[in-house]
């Protein structure tokens, strides 16, 4: 299980990485943490002729927390994201999701950008990106910088809009304003650390009186891409949230799904998991939002 031969190049900057991609064309591939890419190379399912390492580019590892926006470098390692105090305060959903990502050894190498470009439909970080409609910054030598919404970034299993000459450089996420915020991530995997059979995440903002101000909800593993299903929860806005409402939303979401089947889960089972996870993440996020209101009070 040795990869096909390739040549290795280490890029010192984003510009150099883009230049190398431009120079070597579609046979070149970027590597950062390599936790998804290397197994595929070992099985010779992916066989780049040129491997361009962007993992040591400091500019890609930056984490910037501003009042409304969080900007995460593509090569921020997962363990750094999980333990970052400012990020934990601004967007706790990231750390909540990372608990489910692989194992300590893979989180020590794995990066945010690597997870996004790998685009496994059941992966955790792409799901969070979709739920929060992250803006994904892509850079190429030919066309400079462009920004793609996470909801448009993923096009199918293991596939994205990223062009062969592009480097994912950063991910911008909005912080929701106001108090009363709560989020939750949950998934069902057969073993802890495996890719999820299905996953769900939610973020809820409550007004001081407990009515829903804003809600986001997304599901992983139930389609070719992570699904934003916030629209199904939009009816909650302005309402008090309770189990009946939560379950109604979950049912309507589940009914609309046509999940894929594989060795470990049928389509029907995945749909049922999606329903359960919708209920669970909405409940937990609501409970956290309420707790946060209580803290404020």
């Amino acid at each position, binding site marked *: *299980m040795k990869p*096909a*031969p*390739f*040549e290795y190049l280490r890029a010192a900057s984003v510009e150099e990485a883009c230049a190398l991609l431009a120079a070597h064309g579609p046979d070149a591939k970027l*590597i950062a943490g*390599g936790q998804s890419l290397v*197994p595929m190379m070992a099985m010779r399912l992916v066989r780049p002729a040129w491997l361009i390492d962007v993992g040591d580019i400091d500019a890609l590892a930056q984490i910037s927390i501003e009042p409304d926006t969080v900007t995460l470098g593509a090569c921020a390692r997962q363990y750094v994201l999980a333990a970052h105090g400012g990020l934990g305060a601004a967007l706790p959903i990231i750390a909540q999701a990372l608990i489910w990502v692989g194992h*300590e050894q893979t989180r020590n*190498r794995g990066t945010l950008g690597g997870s996004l470009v790998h685009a496994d439909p059941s992966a955790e970080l792409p799901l969070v990106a979709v739920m929060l409609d992250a803006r994904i910054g892509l850079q190429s030598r030919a066309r400079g910088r462009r920004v793609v919404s996470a909801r448009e970034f993923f096009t199918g299993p293991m596939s994205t809009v990223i062009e062969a000459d592009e480097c994912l450089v950063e991910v911008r996420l909005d912080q929701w304003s106001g108090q009363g915020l709560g989020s939750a991530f949950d998934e069902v995997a057969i073993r802890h650390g495996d890719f999820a059979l299905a996953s769900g995440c939610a973020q809820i903002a409550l007004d001081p009186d407990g009515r829903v101000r804003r809600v986001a909800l997304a599901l992983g593993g139930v389609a070719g891409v992570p699904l934003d299903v916030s629209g199904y929860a939009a009816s909650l806005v302005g309402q008090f949230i309770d189990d009946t409402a939560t379950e109604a939303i979950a049912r309507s979401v589940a009914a609309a799904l046509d999940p894929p089947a594989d060795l470990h889960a049928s389509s029907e089972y995945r749909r049922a998991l999606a329903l359960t996870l919708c209920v669970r993440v909405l409940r937990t996020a609501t409970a956290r939002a309420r707790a946060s209101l209580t803290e404020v009070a």
Partner: protein
Amino acid sequence: MSDRMNEVSVERARERLHEVRLQVNGAWRSGQCAARTSLVDFLRETLRLTGTHVGCEHGICGACSVMLDGRPVRSCLMFAVQADGHSITTVEGLAAADGTMSVLQDSFCQTHGLQCGYCTPGMLIAAQALLERNRCPTEFEIRDAIGGNLCRCTGYQQIVDAIRLAAARLNAAATGAGSGVSAPAA
């Protein structure tokens, strides 16, 4: 066929060797390898440090765990060229310079936290990383720390016992108290 052959021959012809220099267990070591050589193959085949084991080569079993700059990683999921200039700790580097086993290694012997020994180097690396950041781990934290390391012999029970014992002994040593903690047998 001949096209494909030519293509691969070209690939082969251009597979140049890279000089890789690592600080392994405190000492700088270097060797040459192809870009596609994994870190674990480099450690084992080039540097002949065979303590680190190959289990699955696709990042699941954890047998190849080593420390990279003080953090546990899977050495089958890294190319040696990526580790150039970095610091690596393998199982061979866990004992003191004079060969005295670390408290953790000794605790594995005390509870018989291994059988065939094949996953053991990876387990030790994972456990070492845990104890370096958490001297009072709960059972869940211990299991989570080794959750990415598969063992087929032990059912993990005596490994968990070993890590718990090591934590207790390290704490006892740190506080100067010795009671209540099994000493290593002669």
